Protein backbone atom coordinates (compact mmCIF):
# COMPACT_ATOMS: atom_id res chain seq x y z
CA UNK A 1 0.00 0.00 0.00
CA UNK A 2 2.75 2.43 0.94
CA UNK A 3 4.62 1.52 -2.21
CA UNK A 4 1.46 1.95 -4.28
CA UNK A 5 1.00 5.41 -2.85
CA UNK A 6 4.64 6.33 -3.50
CA UNK A 7 4.02 5.51 -7.15
CA UNK A 8 0.54 6.98 -7.46
CA UNK A 9 0.51 9.69 -4.79
CA UNK A 10 0.96 12.39 -7.39
CA UNK A 11 -1.92 11.05 -9.47
CA UNK A 12 -4.24 10.59 -6.49
CA UNK A 13 -3.56 14.13 -5.25
CA UNK A 14 -4.15 15.45 -8.78
CA UNK A 15 -7.47 13.59 -8.86
CA UNK A 16 -8.55 15.13 -5.56
CA UNK A 17 -7.62 18.65 -6.69
CA UNK A 18 -9.45 18.09 -9.99
CA UNK A 19 -12.56 17.01 -8.09
CA UNK A 20 -12.38 20.20 -6.02
CA UNK A 21 -12.07 22.26 -9.21
CA UNK A 22 -15.10 20.47 -10.65
CA UNK A 23 -17.02 21.56 -7.54
CA UNK A 24 -15.94 25.16 -8.11
CA UNK A 25 -17.69 24.96 -11.48
CA UNK A 26 -20.66 23.15 -9.96
CA UNK A 27 -21.40 25.93 -7.43
CA UNK A 28 -22.47 28.58 -9.96
CA UNK A 29 -24.14 25.81 -11.94
CA UNK A 30 -26.37 25.11 -8.93
CA UNK A 31 -27.86 28.52 -9.65
CA UNK A 32 -28.02 27.71 -13.36
CA UNK A 33 -25.00 29.79 -14.30
CA UNK A 34 -22.56 28.21 -16.76
CA UNK A 35 -19.38 30.00 -15.69
CA UNK A 36 -15.96 28.90 -16.95
CA UNK A 37 -14.13 31.40 -14.74
CA UNK A 38 -12.79 28.79 -12.28
CA UNK A 39 -9.34 28.46 -13.92
CA UNK A 40 -8.88 32.22 -13.64
CA UNK A 41 -9.39 32.16 -9.88
CA UNK A 42 -7.26 29.00 -9.68
CA UNK A 43 -4.44 30.89 -11.44
CA UNK A 44 -4.85 33.85 -9.08
CA UNK A 45 -4.70 31.55 -6.04
CA UNK A 46 -1.55 29.93 -7.41
CA UNK A 47 0.15 33.26 -8.03
CA UNK A 48 -0.79 34.49 -4.56
CA UNK A 49 0.80 31.36 -3.06
CA UNK A 50 3.87 31.63 -5.30
CA UNK A 51 4.50 35.32 -4.62
CA UNK A 52 3.80 35.16 -0.88
CA UNK A 53 5.90 32.04 -0.30
CA UNK A 54 8.89 33.07 -2.41
CA UNK A 55 8.97 36.83 -1.88
CA UNK A 56 7.03 37.84 1.19
CA UNK A 57 7.23 35.12 3.84
CA UNK A 58 10.76 34.11 4.89
CA UNK A 59 10.26 31.33 7.40
CA UNK A 60 13.91 30.25 7.39
CA UNK A 61 15.37 26.76 6.91
CA UNK A 62 13.41 23.52 7.17
CA UNK A 63 10.10 22.55 5.54
CA UNK A 64 7.76 25.43 4.72
CA UNK A 65 5.35 25.83 7.67
CA UNK A 66 1.80 24.69 6.97
CA UNK A 67 0.27 27.63 8.80
CA UNK A 68 1.74 29.89 6.14
CA UNK A 69 -0.02 27.80 3.49
CA UNK A 70 -3.23 28.34 5.43
CA UNK A 71 -2.60 32.10 5.49
CA UNK A 72 -2.03 32.00 1.72
CA UNK A 73 -5.34 30.17 1.36
CA UNK A 74 -7.08 32.86 3.38
CA UNK A 75 -5.55 35.63 1.26
CA UNK A 76 -6.47 33.77 -1.93
CA UNK A 77 -10.05 33.28 -0.70
CA UNK A 78 -10.45 36.97 0.12
CA UNK A 79 -8.93 38.20 -3.15
CA UNK A 80 -10.97 35.70 -5.19
CA UNK A 81 -14.16 36.71 -3.40
CA UNK A 82 -13.57 40.43 -3.97
CA UNK A 83 -12.73 39.91 -7.63
CA UNK A 84 -15.69 37.55 -8.10
CA UNK A 85 -18.13 40.19 -6.87
CA UNK A 86 -16.48 42.78 -9.10
CA UNK A 87 -16.63 40.55 -12.18
CA UNK A 88 -19.85 38.76 -11.28
CA UNK A 89 -22.15 41.76 -10.96
CA UNK A 90 -21.79 42.82 -14.62
CA UNK A 91 -21.04 39.35 -16.09
CA UNK A 92 -24.00 37.55 -14.51
CA UNK A 93 -26.41 39.77 -16.42
CA UNK A 94 -25.51 37.54 -19.35
CA UNK A 95 -27.22 34.22 -19.77
CA UNK A 96 -26.25 30.77 -20.95
CA UNK A 97 -23.52 30.58 -23.52
CA UNK A 98 -22.89 34.34 -23.39
CA UNK A 99 -21.90 34.08 -19.74
CA UNK A 100 -19.60 31.17 -20.65
CA UNK A 101 -17.95 33.33 -23.33
CA UNK A 102 -17.54 36.31 -20.99
CA UNK A 103 -15.92 34.12 -18.33
CA UNK A 104 -13.55 32.62 -20.92
CA UNK A 105 -12.56 36.19 -21.78
CA UNK A 106 -11.95 36.83 -18.08
CA UNK A 107 -9.61 33.81 -17.90
CA UNK A 108 -7.81 34.99 -21.01
CA UNK A 109 -7.34 38.54 -19.67
CA UNK A 110 -5.79 37.12 -16.50
CA UNK A 111 -3.45 34.94 -18.57
CA UNK A 112 -2.21 37.89 -20.64
CA UNK A 113 -1.83 39.98 -17.49
CA UNK A 114 0.23 37.29 -15.78
CA UNK A 115 2.49 36.98 -18.83
CA UNK A 116 3.26 40.69 -18.66
CA UNK A 117 3.52 41.44 -14.96
CA UNK A 118 7.20 41.35 -13.89
CA UNK A 119 6.34 40.36 -10.31
CA UNK A 120 4.72 37.15 -11.64
CA UNK A 121 7.85 36.15 -13.57
CA UNK A 122 6.51 36.77 -17.07
CA UNK A 123 6.45 33.77 -19.38
CA UNK A 124 8.89 31.84 -17.19
CA UNK A 125 6.69 32.07 -14.13
CA UNK A 126 7.75 31.53 -10.55
CA UNK A 127 10.07 28.65 -9.68
CA UNK A 128 11.11 26.90 -6.51
CA UNK A 129 7.93 27.41 -4.54
CA UNK A 130 8.84 26.15 -1.03
CA UNK A 131 7.56 22.74 0.02
CA UNK A 132 5.80 21.96 3.29
CA UNK A 133 6.05 18.22 2.56
CA UNK A 134 8.81 15.83 1.50
CA UNK A 135 6.85 14.14 -1.27
CA UNK A 136 4.10 15.30 -3.61
CA UNK A 137 1.80 12.52 -2.43
CA UNK A 138 1.64 14.10 1.02
CA UNK A 139 -0.29 17.01 -0.46
CA UNK A 140 -3.28 14.76 -0.06
CA UNK A 141 -3.31 16.04 3.56
CA UNK A 142 -4.25 19.45 2.21
CA UNK A 143 -6.28 18.38 -0.81
CA UNK A 144 -8.50 15.74 0.74
CA UNK A 145 -9.69 17.79 3.73
CA UNK A 146 -10.44 20.68 1.36
CA UNK A 147 -12.43 18.42 -0.95
CA UNK A 148 -14.35 16.89 1.96
CA UNK A 149 -15.12 20.28 3.49
CA UNK A 150 -16.31 21.55 0.11
CA UNK A 151 -18.52 18.48 -0.37
CA UNK A 152 -20.08 18.69 3.09
CA UNK A 153 -20.56 22.44 2.63
CA UNK A 154 -22.39 22.00 -0.67
CA UNK A 155 -24.37 18.98 0.53
CA UNK A 156 -25.61 20.99 3.52
CA UNK A 157 -26.08 24.15 1.45
CA UNK A 158 -28.55 22.33 -0.79
CA UNK A 159 -30.77 21.91 2.25
CA UNK A 160 -30.77 25.53 3.32
CA UNK A 161 -32.61 28.67 2.28
CA UNK A 162 -29.75 29.87 0.04
CA UNK A 163 -29.29 26.49 -1.64
CA UNK A 164 -32.99 26.36 -2.46
CA UNK A 165 -32.76 29.88 -3.88
CA UNK A 166 -29.93 28.64 -6.16
CA UNK A 167 -32.12 25.81 -7.39
CA UNK A 168 -35.11 28.08 -7.87
CA UNK A 169 -33.06 30.29 -10.20
CA UNK A 170 -31.69 27.25 -12.00
CA UNK A 171 -35.24 26.04 -12.59
CA UNK A 172 -36.94 29.32 -13.52
CA UNK A 173 -35.35 32.68 -12.89
CA UNK A 174 -38.53 34.66 -13.54
CA UNK A 175 -40.60 32.58 -11.15
CA UNK A 176 -37.86 32.80 -8.51
CA UNK A 177 -37.87 36.57 -8.93
CA UNK A 178 -41.63 36.68 -8.49
CA UNK A 179 -41.25 34.59 -5.31
CA UNK A 180 -39.12 37.25 -3.67
CA UNK A 181 -35.63 35.98 -4.52
CA UNK A 182 -33.16 38.61 -5.77
CA UNK A 183 -31.71 36.84 -8.83
CA UNK A 184 -28.61 39.02 -9.28
CA UNK A 185 -27.52 38.85 -5.64
CA UNK A 186 -28.14 35.11 -5.48
CA UNK A 187 -26.21 34.41 -8.68
CA UNK A 188 -23.29 36.55 -7.49
CA UNK A 189 -23.20 34.57 -4.23
CA UNK A 190 -23.06 31.26 -6.12
CA UNK A 191 -20.39 32.59 -8.47
CA UNK A 192 -18.32 33.92 -5.55
CA UNK A 193 -18.45 30.60 -3.70
CA UNK A 194 -17.07 28.84 -6.77
CA UNK A 195 -14.35 31.48 -7.13
CA UNK A 196 -13.24 31.14 -3.51
CA UNK A 197 -12.95 27.36 -3.82
CA UNK A 198 -10.95 27.65 -7.07
CA UNK A 199 -8.61 30.23 -5.52
CA UNK A 200 -7.91 28.01 -2.51
CA UNK A 201 -7.27 24.97 -4.74
CA UNK A 202 -4.82 27.15 -6.69
CA UNK A 203 -2.79 27.76 -3.51
CA UNK A 204 -2.40 24.02 -2.90
CA UNK A 205 -1.65 23.40 -6.58
CA UNK A 206 1.15 25.98 -6.67
CA UNK A 207 3.01 24.29 -3.80
CA UNK A 208 2.16 20.85 -5.15
CA UNK A 209 3.55 21.62 -8.62
CA UNK A 210 6.48 23.58 -7.20
CA UNK A 211 6.26 26.09 -10.04
CA UNK A 212 3.55 28.42 -11.34
CA UNK A 213 3.21 30.19 -14.66
CA UNK A 214 0.70 31.45 -17.19
CA UNK A 215 0.07 27.93 -18.49
CA UNK A 216 -1.78 27.12 -15.27
CA UNK A 217 -5.48 27.73 -15.34
CA UNK A 218 -6.13 28.39 -19.00
CA UNK A 219 -9.07 27.93 -21.32
CA UNK A 220 -8.16 24.24 -21.88
CA UNK A 221 -8.64 23.49 -18.23
CA UNK A 222 -12.03 25.26 -18.31
CA UNK A 223 -13.14 22.65 -20.79
CA UNK A 224 -11.70 19.83 -18.70
CA UNK A 225 -13.55 21.00 -15.60
CA UNK A 226 -16.73 21.31 -17.60
CA UNK A 227 -16.25 17.72 -18.79
CA UNK A 228 -15.82 16.55 -15.18
CA UNK A 229 -19.14 18.11 -14.25
CA UNK A 230 -21.09 16.99 -17.32
CA UNK A 231 -19.77 13.42 -17.37
CA UNK A 232 -19.93 13.05 -13.59
CA UNK A 233 -23.41 14.55 -13.38
CA UNK A 234 -24.46 18.13 -12.79
CA UNK A 235 -27.44 17.51 -10.50
CA UNK A 236 -25.80 16.42 -7.23
CA UNK A 237 -22.63 17.27 -5.35
CA UNK A 238 -21.30 13.75 -6.00
CA UNK A 239 -21.40 13.99 -9.79
CA UNK A 240 -18.59 16.55 -10.30
CA UNK A 241 -16.44 14.77 -7.70
CA UNK A 242 -16.79 11.40 -9.41
CA UNK A 243 -16.23 13.07 -12.79
CA UNK A 244 -13.10 14.87 -11.60
CA UNK A 245 -11.61 11.77 -9.98
CA UNK A 246 -12.43 9.48 -12.88
CA UNK A 247 -11.45 11.68 -15.80
CA UNK A 248 -8.16 12.60 -14.15
CA UNK A 249 -7.31 8.94 -13.55
CA UNK A 250 -8.46 7.71 -16.94
CA UNK A 251 -5.52 8.94 -19.08
CA UNK A 252 -3.15 7.27 -16.59
CA UNK A 253 -5.10 4.02 -16.58
CA UNK A 254 -4.91 4.04 -20.37
CA UNK A 255 -1.21 4.89 -20.36
CA UNK A 256 -0.28 1.50 -21.81
CA UNK A 257 -1.87 2.55 -25.09
CA UNK A 258 0.73 5.29 -25.59
CA UNK A 259 -0.62 8.15 -27.72
CA UNK A 260 -3.73 6.23 -28.65
CA UNK A 261 -4.99 6.79 -25.14
CA UNK A 262 -6.02 10.34 -25.98
CA UNK A 263 -8.15 9.05 -28.83
CA UNK A 264 -9.76 6.45 -26.58
CA UNK A 265 -10.22 9.11 -23.87
CA UNK A 266 -12.10 11.27 -26.37
CA UNK A 267 -14.25 8.35 -27.48
CA UNK A 268 -15.08 7.42 -23.87
CA UNK A 269 -16.22 10.99 -23.15
CA UNK A 270 -18.40 11.02 -26.26
CA UNK A 271 -19.90 7.63 -25.41
CA UNK A 272 -20.39 8.70 -21.83
CA UNK A 273 -22.28 11.78 -22.96
CA UNK A 274 -24.57 9.64 -25.13
CA UNK A 275 -25.34 6.92 -22.59
CA UNK A 276 -25.32 9.11 -19.49
CA UNK A 277 -26.86 12.37 -20.71
CA UNK A 278 -27.44 13.45 -17.11
CA UNK A 279 -23.98 12.27 -16.09
CA UNK A 280 -22.94 9.15 -14.23
CA UNK A 281 -24.37 10.21 -10.87
CA UNK A 282 -28.01 11.27 -11.09
CA UNK A 283 -30.47 12.15 -8.31
CA UNK A 284 -32.44 9.05 -9.34
CA UNK A 285 -29.41 6.85 -8.77
CA UNK A 286 -28.88 8.34 -5.32
CA UNK A 287 -32.52 8.00 -4.32
CA UNK A 288 -32.50 4.37 -5.44
CA UNK A 289 -29.42 3.89 -3.31
CA UNK A 290 -31.12 5.52 -0.32
CA UNK A 291 -34.30 3.57 -0.85
CA UNK A 292 -32.26 0.37 -0.76
CA UNK A 293 -30.94 1.33 2.63
CA UNK A 294 -34.13 2.72 4.14
CA UNK A 295 -36.97 0.41 3.18
CA UNK A 296 -40.44 1.92 3.21
CA UNK A 297 -39.44 5.49 2.54
CA UNK A 298 -40.74 6.67 -0.83
CA UNK A 299 -38.08 8.01 -3.11
CA UNK A 300 -38.35 11.59 -4.16
CA UNK A 301 -39.97 11.33 -7.56
CA UNK A 302 -37.51 10.30 -10.19
CA UNK A 303 -39.80 8.71 -12.71
CA UNK A 304 -38.65 11.00 -15.46
CA UNK A 305 -35.03 10.01 -15.66
CA UNK A 306 -35.26 9.89 -19.43
CA UNK A 307 -36.09 13.57 -19.68
CA UNK A 308 -32.79 15.29 -19.87
CA UNK A 309 -32.19 18.82 -18.75
CA UNK A 310 -28.98 20.55 -19.64
CA UNK A 311 -27.64 22.68 -16.85
CA UNK A 312 -27.38 25.74 -19.04
CA UNK A 313 -30.85 26.28 -20.33
Amino acid at each position, binding site marked *: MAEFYTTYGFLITSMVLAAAMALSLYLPLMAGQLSLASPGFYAIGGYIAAVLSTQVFHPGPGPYPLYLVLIEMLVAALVSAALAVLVGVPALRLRGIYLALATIAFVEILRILSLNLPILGGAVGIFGIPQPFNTQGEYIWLGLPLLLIAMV*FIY*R*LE*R*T*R*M*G*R*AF*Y*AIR*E*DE*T*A*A*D*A*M*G*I*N*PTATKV*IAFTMGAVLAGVVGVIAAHFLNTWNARQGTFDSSINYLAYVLIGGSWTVFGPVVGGLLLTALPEILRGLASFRFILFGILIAVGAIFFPQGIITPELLSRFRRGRQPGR*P*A*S*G*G*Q*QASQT*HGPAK
Partner: protein
Amino acid sequence: MDQLSSTATIEPVTPGGEVVLEVRGLTRRFGGLVAVNDVAFDVREGEIFGLIGPNGAGKTTVFNMITGLTPVTKGSVALHGENITGLKPYQIAQRGMARTFQNIRLFGNLSALTNVEIARHTHTGSGIIAGVIGLPRARAEERLTRQRALELLALVGLADRAEEKARNFPYGDQRRLEIARALALQPKVLLLDEPAAGMNTGEKAELSDFIRRIRRDFDLTVLLIEHHVPLVMGLCDRIAVLDFGHLIALGAPEIVQRDRRVIEAYLGEGE
Protein backbone atom coordinates in the same frame (compact mmCIF):
# COMPACT_ATOMS: atom_id res chain seq x y z
CA MET B 1 -61.30 59.15 -11.13
CA ASP B 2 -61.22 61.34 -14.24
CA GLN B 3 -59.13 58.74 -16.04
CA LEU B 4 -62.18 56.49 -16.12
CA SER B 5 -64.75 58.93 -17.40
CA SER B 6 -64.89 58.14 -21.10
CA THR B 7 -66.47 54.68 -21.10
CA ALA B 8 -69.92 53.29 -20.63
CA THR B 9 -70.37 51.32 -17.40
CA ILE B 10 -67.65 52.31 -15.09
CA GLU B 11 -68.97 52.28 -11.57
CA PRO B 12 -67.36 54.47 -9.02
CA VAL B 13 -65.63 52.34 -6.44
CA THR B 14 -68.13 50.88 -4.01
CA PRO B 15 -67.58 52.21 -0.55
CA GLY B 16 -65.83 49.63 1.54
CA GLY B 17 -62.39 48.77 2.75
CA GLU B 18 -59.24 50.71 2.31
CA VAL B 19 -57.67 50.88 -1.17
CA VAL B 20 -54.94 48.22 -1.36
CA LEU B 21 -53.96 48.46 -5.00
CA GLU B 22 -54.22 51.59 -7.03
CA VAL B 23 -53.64 51.38 -10.78
CA ARG B 24 -53.50 54.66 -12.70
CA GLY B 25 -53.13 55.29 -16.43
CA LEU B 26 -51.36 51.98 -16.90
CA THR B 27 -50.02 51.71 -20.46
CA ARG B 28 -47.77 49.23 -22.22
CA ARG B 29 -46.51 49.48 -25.77
CA PHE B 30 -44.75 46.67 -27.58
CA GLY B 31 -43.25 48.45 -30.58
CA GLY B 32 -46.22 49.93 -32.41
CA LEU B 33 -48.78 47.80 -30.58
CA VAL B 34 -50.48 49.28 -27.55
CA ALA B 35 -51.19 46.15 -25.49
CA VAL B 36 -52.61 48.02 -22.52
CA ASN B 37 -53.92 51.56 -22.88
CA ASP B 38 -54.55 53.91 -19.99
CA VAL B 39 -56.10 51.38 -17.63
CA ALA B 40 -57.09 52.56 -14.14
CA PHE B 41 -58.81 50.85 -11.24
CA ASP B 42 -58.71 50.53 -7.47
CA VAL B 43 -58.84 47.28 -5.57
CA ARG B 44 -60.17 47.43 -2.01
CA GLU B 45 -59.02 45.39 0.92
CA GLY B 46 -60.59 41.95 1.05
CA GLU B 47 -62.09 42.15 -2.41
CA ILE B 48 -62.10 39.42 -5.02
CA PHE B 49 -61.52 41.44 -8.16
CA GLY B 50 -61.91 39.88 -11.59
CA LEU B 51 -60.09 40.93 -14.72
CA ILE B 52 -61.79 39.57 -17.84
CA GLY B 53 -61.74 40.13 -21.54
CA PRO B 54 -61.27 38.31 -24.85
CA ASN B 55 -57.96 36.71 -25.77
CA GLY B 56 -55.26 39.28 -26.36
CA ALA B 57 -57.12 41.99 -24.43
CA GLY B 58 -54.04 42.64 -22.30
CA LYS B 59 -55.06 40.98 -19.02
CA THR B 60 -51.82 39.13 -18.41
CA THR B 61 -49.83 42.19 -19.46
CA VAL B 62 -51.65 44.14 -16.73
CA PHE B 63 -50.72 41.41 -14.22
CA ASN B 64 -47.11 41.44 -15.41
CA MET B 65 -46.89 45.20 -15.02
CA ILE B 66 -48.42 45.10 -11.53
CA THR B 67 -45.90 42.44 -10.43
CA GLY B 68 -42.92 44.08 -12.15
CA LEU B 69 -42.26 41.37 -14.74
CA THR B 70 -43.05 43.72 -17.64
CA PRO B 71 -41.82 47.31 -17.49
CA VAL B 72 -44.53 49.95 -17.43
CA THR B 73 -44.53 52.30 -20.44
CA LYS B 74 -46.69 54.89 -18.71
CA GLY B 75 -48.81 55.11 -15.60
CA SER B 76 -48.37 53.92 -12.05
CA VAL B 77 -49.14 51.13 -9.61
CA ALA B 78 -49.35 51.74 -5.87
CA LEU B 79 -49.56 49.08 -3.17
CA HIS B 80 -50.87 50.28 0.19
CA GLY B 81 -50.20 53.84 -0.96
CA GLU B 82 -46.58 53.12 -1.87
CA ASN B 83 -45.62 53.66 -5.49
CA ILE B 84 -44.20 50.33 -6.71
CA THR B 85 -43.90 51.26 -10.39
CA GLY B 86 -40.47 50.30 -11.67
CA LEU B 87 -39.56 48.06 -8.73
CA LYS B 88 -38.08 44.63 -9.46
CA PRO B 89 -40.38 41.60 -9.19
CA TYR B 90 -38.64 40.34 -6.05
CA GLN B 91 -39.01 43.76 -4.39
CA ILE B 92 -42.72 43.77 -5.16
CA ALA B 93 -43.02 40.21 -3.85
CA GLN B 94 -41.27 41.27 -0.65
CA ARG B 95 -43.90 44.00 -0.21
CA GLY B 96 -46.66 41.43 -0.04
CA MET B 97 -47.74 40.63 -3.57
CA ALA B 98 -47.77 37.05 -4.81
CA ARG B 99 -48.93 35.57 -8.06
CA THR B 100 -49.49 32.45 -10.11
CA PHE B 101 -48.82 32.14 -13.83
CA GLN B 102 -51.12 31.46 -16.75
CA ASN B 103 -48.64 28.96 -18.18
CA ILE B 104 -47.70 27.43 -14.78
CA ARG B 105 -44.14 28.22 -13.77
CA LEU B 106 -43.31 25.75 -11.04
CA PHE B 107 -39.77 24.64 -10.28
CA GLY B 108 -40.41 21.41 -12.18
CA ASN B 109 -37.44 19.31 -11.13
CA LEU B 110 -37.88 20.11 -7.45
CA SER B 111 -40.27 18.43 -5.05
CA ALA B 112 -43.65 19.97 -4.25
CA LEU B 113 -42.37 20.64 -0.74
CA THR B 114 -39.26 22.44 -1.97
CA ASN B 115 -41.36 24.53 -4.35
CA VAL B 116 -43.36 25.86 -1.41
CA GLU B 117 -40.32 26.18 0.88
CA ILE B 118 -38.58 28.38 -1.69
CA ALA B 119 -41.32 31.00 -1.43
CA ARG B 120 -40.56 31.45 2.27
CA HIS B 121 -37.23 32.99 1.26
CA THR B 122 -38.20 36.53 2.21
CA HIS B 123 -39.58 35.43 5.57
CA THR B 124 -36.39 33.68 6.60
CA GLY B 125 -33.00 35.20 7.23
CA SER B 126 -30.44 32.63 8.37
CA GLY B 127 -26.98 33.26 7.04
CA ILE B 128 -25.29 30.82 4.71
CA ILE B 129 -22.72 29.67 7.26
CA ALA B 130 -25.29 29.37 10.06
CA GLY B 131 -27.42 27.22 7.77
CA VAL B 132 -24.57 25.01 6.61
CA ILE B 133 -23.19 24.45 10.11
CA GLY B 134 -26.72 23.99 11.46
CA LEU B 135 -26.72 26.53 14.29
CA PRO B 136 -29.77 26.18 16.57
CA ARG B 137 -31.55 29.26 15.26
CA ALA B 138 -31.04 28.22 11.63
CA ARG B 139 -32.29 24.73 12.45
CA ALA B 140 -35.39 26.12 14.13
CA GLU B 141 -36.04 28.34 11.12
CA GLU B 142 -35.56 25.37 8.78
CA ARG B 143 -38.06 23.31 10.82
CA LEU B 144 -40.58 26.14 10.71
CA THR B 145 -40.15 26.53 6.94
CA ARG B 146 -40.78 22.84 6.44
CA GLN B 147 -43.77 22.80 8.76
CA ARG B 148 -45.41 25.83 7.13
CA ALA B 149 -44.80 24.38 3.69
CA LEU B 150 -46.39 21.08 4.71
CA GLU B 151 -49.40 22.94 6.13
CA LEU B 152 -49.87 24.78 2.84
CA LEU B 153 -49.55 21.54 0.89
CA ALA B 154 -52.21 20.04 3.16
CA LEU B 155 -54.41 23.07 2.50
CA VAL B 156 -54.34 22.39 -1.25
CA GLY B 157 -54.64 18.64 -0.73
CA LEU B 158 -51.15 17.62 -1.78
CA ALA B 159 -49.63 16.78 1.60
CA ASP B 160 -49.25 13.09 0.83
CA ARG B 161 -47.21 13.82 -2.30
CA ALA B 162 -44.86 16.40 -0.83
CA GLU B 163 -41.74 14.61 -2.00
CA GLU B 164 -42.86 14.18 -5.60
CA LYS B 165 -41.38 16.27 -8.36
CA ALA B 166 -43.63 19.18 -9.33
CA ARG B 167 -43.42 18.31 -13.04
CA ASN B 168 -45.02 14.92 -12.39
CA PHE B 169 -48.28 16.37 -11.04
CA PRO B 170 -51.40 16.53 -13.17
CA TYR B 171 -52.36 19.93 -14.51
CA GLY B 172 -54.98 20.80 -11.90
CA ASP B 173 -52.67 19.80 -9.06
CA GLN B 174 -49.91 21.95 -10.53
CA ARG B 175 -52.29 24.93 -10.41
CA ARG B 176 -53.08 24.17 -6.76
CA LEU B 177 -49.38 23.77 -5.99
CA GLU B 178 -48.72 27.18 -7.53
CA ILE B 179 -51.33 28.69 -5.22
CA ALA B 180 -49.71 27.00 -2.22
CA ARG B 181 -46.35 28.39 -3.31
CA ALA B 182 -47.81 31.88 -3.68
CA LEU B 183 -49.41 31.67 -0.22
CA ALA B 184 -46.03 30.77 1.30
CA LEU B 185 -44.99 34.35 0.51
CA GLN B 186 -47.63 35.42 3.09
CA PRO B 187 -49.01 37.97 0.65
CA LYS B 188 -51.55 40.71 1.26
CA VAL B 189 -52.53 40.66 -2.40
CA LEU B 190 -52.77 37.47 -4.42
CA LEU B 191 -52.90 37.54 -8.23
CA LEU B 192 -54.25 34.40 -9.90
CA ASP B 193 -53.78 34.16 -13.66
CA GLU B 194 -56.45 31.77 -14.98
CA PRO B 195 -56.55 29.54 -11.91
CA ALA B 196 -59.32 27.36 -13.33
CA ALA B 197 -57.71 26.67 -16.69
CA GLY B 198 -57.57 22.95 -17.33
CA MET B 199 -59.88 22.09 -14.43
CA ASN B 200 -63.11 20.16 -14.85
CA THR B 201 -66.52 21.49 -13.74
CA GLY B 202 -66.33 19.91 -10.30
CA GLU B 203 -62.85 21.22 -9.72
CA LYS B 204 -63.94 24.69 -10.83
CA ALA B 205 -66.75 24.74 -8.26
CA GLU B 206 -64.32 23.62 -5.59
CA LEU B 207 -61.89 26.30 -6.67
CA SER B 208 -64.46 29.06 -6.04
CA ASP B 209 -64.99 27.85 -2.50
CA PHE B 210 -61.27 27.48 -2.05
CA ILE B 211 -60.52 31.05 -3.16
CA ARG B 212 -63.19 32.41 -0.81
CA ARG B 213 -61.75 30.33 2.02
CA ILE B 214 -58.17 31.50 1.55
CA ARG B 215 -59.34 35.10 1.29
CA ARG B 216 -60.93 34.74 4.71
CA ASP B 217 -58.24 32.63 6.38
CA PHE B 218 -55.25 34.57 5.06
CA ASP B 219 -56.83 38.07 5.01
CA LEU B 220 -56.22 38.34 1.29
CA THR B 221 -57.20 40.67 -1.44
CA VAL B 222 -57.52 38.61 -4.62
CA LEU B 223 -57.15 39.66 -8.24
CA LEU B 224 -57.93 37.05 -10.81
CA ILE B 225 -57.93 36.62 -14.54
CA GLU B 226 -60.42 34.03 -15.69
CA HIS B 227 -62.16 32.97 -18.87
CA HIS B 228 -64.83 30.83 -17.32
CA VAL B 229 -67.69 33.32 -17.05
CA PRO B 230 -69.95 31.54 -14.51
CA LEU B 231 -66.97 31.21 -12.18
CA VAL B 232 -66.09 34.89 -12.46
CA MET B 233 -69.70 36.06 -12.08
CA GLY B 234 -70.27 33.90 -9.04
CA LEU B 235 -67.00 34.60 -7.31
CA CYS B 236 -65.96 38.19 -7.91
CA ASP B 237 -67.13 41.21 -5.96
CA ARG B 238 -66.24 43.48 -8.85
CA ILE B 239 -65.10 42.94 -12.40
CA ALA B 240 -62.99 44.97 -14.80
CA VAL B 241 -63.41 44.21 -18.49
CA LEU B 242 -60.58 44.79 -20.93
CA ASP B 243 -60.90 44.85 -24.71
CA PHE B 244 -57.97 45.58 -27.01
CA GLY B 245 -56.07 47.05 -24.08
CA HIS B 246 -58.87 49.42 -23.03
CA LEU B 247 -60.89 49.24 -19.86
CA ILE B 248 -64.47 49.11 -21.18
CA ALA B 249 -66.37 48.32 -18.01
CA LEU B 250 -65.86 48.16 -14.28
CA GLY B 251 -68.35 47.28 -11.60
CA ALA B 252 -70.38 44.60 -9.87
CA PRO B 253 -70.90 41.40 -11.91
CA GLU B 254 -74.66 42.01 -12.46
CA ILE B 255 -74.01 45.46 -13.86
CA VAL B 256 -71.05 44.53 -16.03
CA GLN B 257 -72.97 41.55 -17.37
CA ARG B 258 -75.67 43.84 -18.79
CA ASP B 259 -73.25 46.30 -20.38
CA ARG B 260 -73.76 46.46 -24.14
CA ARG B 261 -70.08 46.92 -24.94
CA VAL B 262 -69.12 44.00 -22.77
CA ILE B 263 -71.66 41.77 -24.44
CA GLU B 264 -70.37 42.80 -27.85
CA ALA B 265 -66.73 42.47 -26.96
CA TYR B 266 -66.76 39.38 -24.89
CA LEU B 267 -69.86 37.64 -23.70
CA GLY B 268 -71.43 37.78 -27.16
CA GLU B 269 -68.61 35.83 -28.66
CA GLY B 270 -70.09 32.52 -27.57
CA GLU B 271 -67.91 31.73 -24.59
